[in-house]
């Protein structure tokens, strides 16, 4: 049994993470912990009780984000998915986190080294599923003779380009509006 104090502590930790997620999504990772504290309605010191450094906060947030993506993709992959439905599932998951993810991919190079590793591992989950789907689909559709990492990086490159240059394509959610077009044409590119 958790004590009342433990429950309270966990709730505050979650509140800080949820708020940091929103603040970073809105303003980018340069947003201060002061700002996060204010938005969460906790004292500045409280943040550091839970996360000794800003790096810890960011890494913890990315890890939580990664396991959420992991879970979503895993649940979706249970259905008998094909290439098209998998790519749609990936985009749908990203749409849920679109603003945050956009910040993440635009600012990843300036984040701490450990955050970069967490980011790689987030992508590993996606590449794991894509690799499985490609292996499974091989008999059904003819995929060009391209190495797996180029297949994966081309997909990621495509959606990351649209995300980081959202303004070129729409004022709304670029993934929502261009999802079908991107999936359809990406498949055409890798299909024999």
């Amino acid at each position: 049994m958790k004590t009342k104090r433990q429950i309270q502590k966990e709730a505050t930790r979650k509140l800080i993470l949820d708020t940091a997620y929103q603040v970073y999504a809105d303003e980018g990772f340069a947003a201060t912990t002061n700002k996060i504290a204010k938005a969460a309605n906790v004292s500045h010191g409280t943040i550091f009780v839970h996360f000794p450094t800003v790096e810890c906060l960011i890494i913890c947030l990315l890890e939580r984000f990664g396991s959420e993506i992991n879970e979503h993709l895993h649940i979706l992959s249970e259905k008998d998915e094909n290439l098209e439905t998998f790519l749609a599932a990936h985009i749908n998951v990203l749409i849920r986190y679109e603003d945050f993810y956009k910040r993440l991919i635009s600012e990843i190079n300036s984040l701490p080294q450990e955050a970069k590793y967490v980011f790689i591992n987030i992508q590993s989950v996606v590449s794991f599923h894509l690799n499985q789907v490609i292996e499974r689909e091989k008999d059904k559709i003819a995929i060009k003779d391209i190495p797996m990492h180029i297949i994966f990086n081309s997909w990621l490159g495509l959606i990351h380009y649209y995300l980081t240059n959202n303004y070129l394509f729409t004022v709304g959610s670029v993934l929502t509006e261009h999802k079908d077009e991107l999936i359809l044409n990406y498949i055409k590119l890798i299909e024999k």
Partner: protein
Amino acid sequence: MKTCIACGMPMKKESDFAMGDTSKDYCVYCANSDGTMQSFEEKKQSLINFTIKTQGLDQSVAEKAVENMMRQLPAWKECF
């Protein structure tokens, strides 16, 4: 939902578990053919190879990313 102690994969359906045994704490990808869990070195090597194959990473980057991930997992706590 249970997650694999050795790689972090969520395990939901029977076929996710080693030998289809839902009482196991590790997944089908972390098991040897006899059902035992892969060793730290085996798992690390296979994850590094997989990361390079599917993402094209530089060897040293892949090694660090994999170590970073394994460090968080319950199965390998003592290996770091």
